[in-house]
């Protein structure tokens, strides 16, 4: 495995691609440091725009299923991204939804609270620094003196990778920690994977990794993170701070609670949970210490003024409802 000389076994082909993403998954992939050489010993990397100069055309020319493994990060929200998802699905034997965006939509999926029209209106007209007297908007086709310039079609709704193509595995995290990425690569190379369709990850929640002490949860009030300086030893939820660790799959080592911040749920739901937000709602409702409907209502409204941000920060695209009702003028 760590033999860096030419292996008698033929090298496989590896592709890494990013759709609507931030590049963090790629940076954490580089974060395996010198182990990248082990990856290079096992694979020819045929696509990786952050690091390698291969172009889309070279992928289009490859035979179907000739790429052994594809790590696809990023959500799908334009036609170009869906085109690439389909292309890489066609050319790849194993397609991994890499990171939260591909797995459940992640932060880009918060745009499912809006429509294309609303986003364009804000970005190209309404922000105070935009100077656009002619009301220009990006177009899928623009005629310039020299020819035509094309831009991809921007969807109303952000999709996960598996809402576009079939996916063999999911690697959760925003981004997955380098240690988990390396674990997944080793599992793939050694053939020790769960059944197709699985998430490659732990089967427990962040609470199991969290160093804080937990006793009993009875919340009289939810606190906004800027309202208190929490005790560094005690469970954050017990102190009234909404911490998503209770619903979130483990794997990160509970980094955020370790430095005093609540878990925000970036590894997605634990095994067996269909809708992360529903799980959070259920769990938080269970620990509210009140039986008076009006008091309960007040505790929730004042402590959680942004439930989408609190509960669906990463998982909106593959929640049951997926998006807010689409504004009528968002439809063509």
């Amino acid at each position, binding site marked *: 495995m760590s033999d860096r000389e030419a292996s008698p076994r033929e090298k496989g082909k590896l592709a890494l691609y990013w759709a609507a993403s931030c590049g963090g998954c790629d940076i954490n992939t580089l974060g395996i440091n010198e182990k990248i050489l082990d990856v290079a010993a096992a694979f020819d990397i045929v696509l990786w725009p952050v690091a390698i100069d291969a172009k889309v055309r070279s992928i289009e020319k490859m035979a179907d299923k000739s790429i052994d493994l594809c790590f696809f990060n990023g959500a799908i929200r334009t036609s170009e991204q869906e*085109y690439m998802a389909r292309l890489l699905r066609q050319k790849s034997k194993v397609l991994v939804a890499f990171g939260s965006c591909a797995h459940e939509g992640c932060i880009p999926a918060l745009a499912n609270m809006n429509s294309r029209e609303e986003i364009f209106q804000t970005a190209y007209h309404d922000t105070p620094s935009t100077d656009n007297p002619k009301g220009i908007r990006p177009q899928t086709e623009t005629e310039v003196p020299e020819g035509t310039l094309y831009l991809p*079609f921007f969807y109303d709704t952000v999709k996960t990778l598996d809402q576009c193509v079939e996916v063999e595995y999911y690697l959760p995290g925003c981004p997955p920690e380098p240690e988990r990425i390396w674990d997944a690569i080793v599992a793939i190379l050694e053939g020790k994977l769960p059944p197709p369709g699985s998430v490659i990850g732990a089967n427990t929640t962040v609470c199991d990794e969290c160093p804080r002490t937990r006793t009993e949860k009875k919340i009289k009030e939810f606190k906004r993170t800027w309202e208190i300086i929490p005790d560094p030893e005690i469970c954050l939820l017990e102190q009234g701070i909404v911490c998503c660790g209770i619903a979130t799959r483990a794997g990160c080592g509970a980094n955020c609670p370790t430095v005093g911040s609540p878990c925000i749920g970036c590894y997605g739901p634990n095994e067996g949970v*269909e809708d992360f937000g*529903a*799980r959070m709602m259920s769990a938080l409702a*269970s620990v509210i210490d009140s*039986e008076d409907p009006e008091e309960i209502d007040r505790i929730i409204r004042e402590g*959680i003024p942004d439930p989408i941000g609190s509960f669906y920060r990463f998982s909106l695209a593959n929640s049951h409802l997926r998006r807010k009702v689409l504004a009528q003028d968002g439809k063509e």
Partner: protein
Amino acid sequence: MSNNDFEPRIIGFFCNWCSYRAADLAGTSRIKYQPNVRIIRVMCSGRVDPTFVLKALALGADGVLIAGCHPGECHYLEQNYKAMRRYTMLKHTLRFFGIEEERIRLQWASAAEGAQLAQAINEMVDQVRELGPLNWSAQWADNGQIETAIERIAEEHAEAMEVPA
């Protein structure tokens, strides 16, 4: 706005001990009420995970009715309070999705309250009929624009000049 042919499909989660018996009572009492609620029996209203409600809506329900024992009368002592808190949390969140309040309802009904339950059902069905079908999966339905756009990309790639490696 309301479609005269539209009949709401409402999913009901009724607890075994009180509200399901109330529905039985309404039946044996021959009380007529609108047949739009598909009842699923759970042991306790506290069993109702918000996931059930969201899934029902996503799969095509126009509304969801949760029914349980009155506060203080839960067969399992306090779990209907959990249902109440979960329901409050759910309603708070659903507001942000743009789903009308009337589509989700929490109704307390003791085993003796067949008539009251029937009336609550009628009320809810009327309200949802007025609101119209939810048809939630239409929110992300595509009318063919995506296919056309993807074809265009393939054409655009084919149009560009070949450059040797």
